[in-house]
């Protein structure tokens, strides 16, 4: 009995010893030298949402910045998944926010209005802010400007264009569309309405979420900042919605819903254009990489290599050229950040402002991201990339356009964003004929009321 007790005791002591050693080793590993802040340098904690291959690029940018620095040390922390906003707010409320945050929701004005983030003029010098404004693309400037102040800097733009499967169009004797009428013709040729069986292919189907893009194309604006009013009932916005709803009239709401959901069952995140489900799809610049990979796999399999193009959104008569919806990933500096100046230095390094264009061009090429300034685009390394990727050139031209608009940068923008998507979704999926003017009028009143309340808070 005594022997058993002593053995048991020794085993407990040995287990505790192993546990202590394990804790020491893991602590050493977790605070390995590459993440340790060097002496006399200020740490900049950077929260971002990038994962997968993009995360490695982000860490590479941070490494290059840290190597170039004597004053600051950026520690990137990946926070993938939903609710980054919520985590951020809890950190601000708890008094321990990061020094730099990367977001992609239309929250700049909302957060700036409430004092959750700093305006850039609170961190940078007036001269820097003035030069930055002139340096950015108009679309990039619009994304972060609230009440004539910059509240962040986009680190990349997301631009939408139409991707065209030229091989599929050629099979039907069609060319890429230049006007809305061309687009409708393509849709009706590839998927003639009234077909008894379920459709296997569509020429094009508008996505209700993309009314944000089609509104400006039809010459409309969702918000008039001169008198702070929602402007949904303008003829242009109504015309854009009416055109989108015409596809519901043509194919029926059930067919549109069924076909769109069918895209989700494609293996992995296959672009539906590859499966020839559509001849034309609206999407962002990140698909260029997918197209190249797809064409390479076709070539490897010795199949006919499909040809694709990326074109600006076609206009109706009286519409705006090179128009659409822009969003982006924005750097913001939280209120209460300990190293706001270090965060600003990292922002400049990443975006290429103040003579760091070459480094930013390198970052954009690595990630397949759209620069926020023509100065970065003009860099030789980026020009070389464009020469290799002609499809990307369309997106760069659109990024420089004056007619790319984000969700209005105003308090209450997330609500505005949701309501507009719901409006188009309701109209396009209605089983009875939707009364568009009435729907727009009701939504306008509802959104205006929410925005007025949000503006009057604090």
């Amino acid at each position, binding site marked *: 009995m005594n022997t058993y007790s002593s053995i048991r005791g020794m085993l407990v002591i040995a287990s505790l010893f192993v546990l202590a050693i394990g804790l020491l080793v893991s602590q050493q590993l977790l605070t390995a030298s590459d993440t340790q802040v060097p002496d006399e340098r200020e740490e900049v904690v950077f929260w971002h949402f990038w994962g997968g291959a993009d995360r490695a690029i982000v860490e590479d940018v941070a490494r290059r910045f840290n190597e170039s620095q004597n004053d600051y040390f950026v520690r990137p922390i990946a926070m993938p998944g*939903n*609710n980054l*906003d*919520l985590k951020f*707010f*809890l950190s*601000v*409320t708890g008094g321990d926010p990061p020094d730099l945050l990367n977001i992609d929701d239309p929250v700049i004005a*909302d957060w700036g209005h*409430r*004092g*959750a983030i700093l305006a850039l003029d609170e961190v940078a010098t007036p001269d820097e802010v003035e030069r930055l404004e002139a340096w950015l693309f108009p679309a990039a400037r619009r994304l972060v400007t609230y009440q004539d102040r910059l509240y962040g800097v986009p680190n990349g733009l997301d631009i939408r264009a139409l991707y065209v499967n030229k091989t599929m169009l050629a099979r039907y004797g069609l060319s890429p569309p230049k006007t809305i009428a061309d687009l409708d013709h393509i849709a009706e040729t590839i998927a003639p309405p009234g077909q008894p069986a*379920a459709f296997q292919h569509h020429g094009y189907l508008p996505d209700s979420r993309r009314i944000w893009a089609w509104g400006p194309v039809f010459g409309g604006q969702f918000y008039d900042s001169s008198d702070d009013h929602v402007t949904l009932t303008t003829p242009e916005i109504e015309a854009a919605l009416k055109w989108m709803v015409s596809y519901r009239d043509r194919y*029926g*709401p*059930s*067919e549109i*819903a*069924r*076909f*769109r*959901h*069918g895209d*989700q*069952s494609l293996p992995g995140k296959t672009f539906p254009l590859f499966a020839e489900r559509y001849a034309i799809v609206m999407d962002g610049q990140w698909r260029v990489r997918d197209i190249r990979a797809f064409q390479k796999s076709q070539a490897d399999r010795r199949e006919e290599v499909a040809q694709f193009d990326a074109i600006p959104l076609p206009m109706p008569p009286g519409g705006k050229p090179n128009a659409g919806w822009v969003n982006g990933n924005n750097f913001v500096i939280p*209120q209460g950040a300990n190293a706001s100046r270090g965060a600003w230095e990292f922002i400049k390094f990443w975006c290429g402002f103040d003579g760091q264009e070459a480094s930013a061009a390198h970052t954009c090429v690595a990630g397949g991201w759209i620069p926020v300034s023509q100065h970065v685009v003009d860099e030789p390394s980026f020009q070389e990339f464009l020469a290799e990727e002609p499809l990307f050139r369309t997106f760069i031209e659109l990024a420089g356009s004056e007619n790319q608009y984000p969700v209005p940068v105003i308090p*209450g923008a*997330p*609500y505005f964003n*949701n309501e507009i*998507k*719901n409006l188009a*979704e*309701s109209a396009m*999926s209605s*089983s*009875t004929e939707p009364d568009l003017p009435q729907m727009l009028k009701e939504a306008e009143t*509802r959104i205006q009321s*929410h925005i007025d*309340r*949000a503006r009057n*808070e*604090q």
Partner: protein
Amino acid sequence: MRHQADTSGSAETASRESRRRWRSWFTAAGFAGPWLLGLLALFIYPFVVSLYWSFCQYDLINPPRFAGLDNYEQLASEFATGTGIAHALWNTSYYALISVPLSIVLGVGLATLLSCDIRGQSIFRTLFYLPSVIPVVAASILWMWLLNPADGLVNSVLGSLGLWQPQWFASPAELVSPDSFTEAAWANNSAPIGSKDALILMSLWGMGNFMVIYLAAIGDIPKSLYEAARIDGAGPIRRFINITLPLLTPIIFFNLVMGLIQSVQAFTQIYIVSEGRGAPADSTLVISLHLFLSAFQHLNMGYASAVAWLLFVLLGIATWFLFTTSRRWVYEGVR
């Protein structure tokens, strides 16, 4: 002397008794203390504070600012125009009022069948209970695949049988709605069944929890009652209606109240299938999601608190109503 000894003895006994009482009190406090602290910090404090916040404008960043009845006036105006909370309440009611009774009917039916003495009874019981142990997130994603209108398993089966194929989570249509009976609603080989109906289907899949309680209750019914009824010539249906069902009413009542509360508070599965925003077209914007979006997306914690209190009051009224009416239909035995 004897009297003195008695006095000092009783004083000693009293002191020992007092010490024992204190010790047991400290022991009880030691065990209950952590829980009581948790109750105070995590339930009572937020409960009281949320009532105060419901009269404030509060965005998490800045201190709450007293705004009187502003949030409640906003709720009233939304009820008047049928937007916001009114819309969310309609969606919640639709979901709760169909899913709870259906889960009770199916739960009782299943439990009755599974209480029959048949081969493989335990396997069937396990199979029907199994969905309840699958995490909500995994189950939600699974159902999104199953109900994919284009090539989900459910629509494939319906299609192969030549039946209508609903659009499920892709459509804001409602089965229980005046629009359902129009010809247009049934056109294009589809049915006016939409996202809320799909949510109800999902909720029924996890009714194993309730079924187990019914099974236990059925097992508790004295066999002698069935034997007596059988001798009197009562058939299986008569026995079910006159014996099983009345004796199950306390459990049905319990499940009714719990099911109502659970369905009104349902969030995770709805958040997942609705893209976190009540898609499509706000058709799955239930009160819990409306509350979440108001608080953490629109940063309107005061309004969200008012919604939470409205939900609390509505649930209270509904539960009170159920308790009041239960006297008429719940069998509580001979008193």
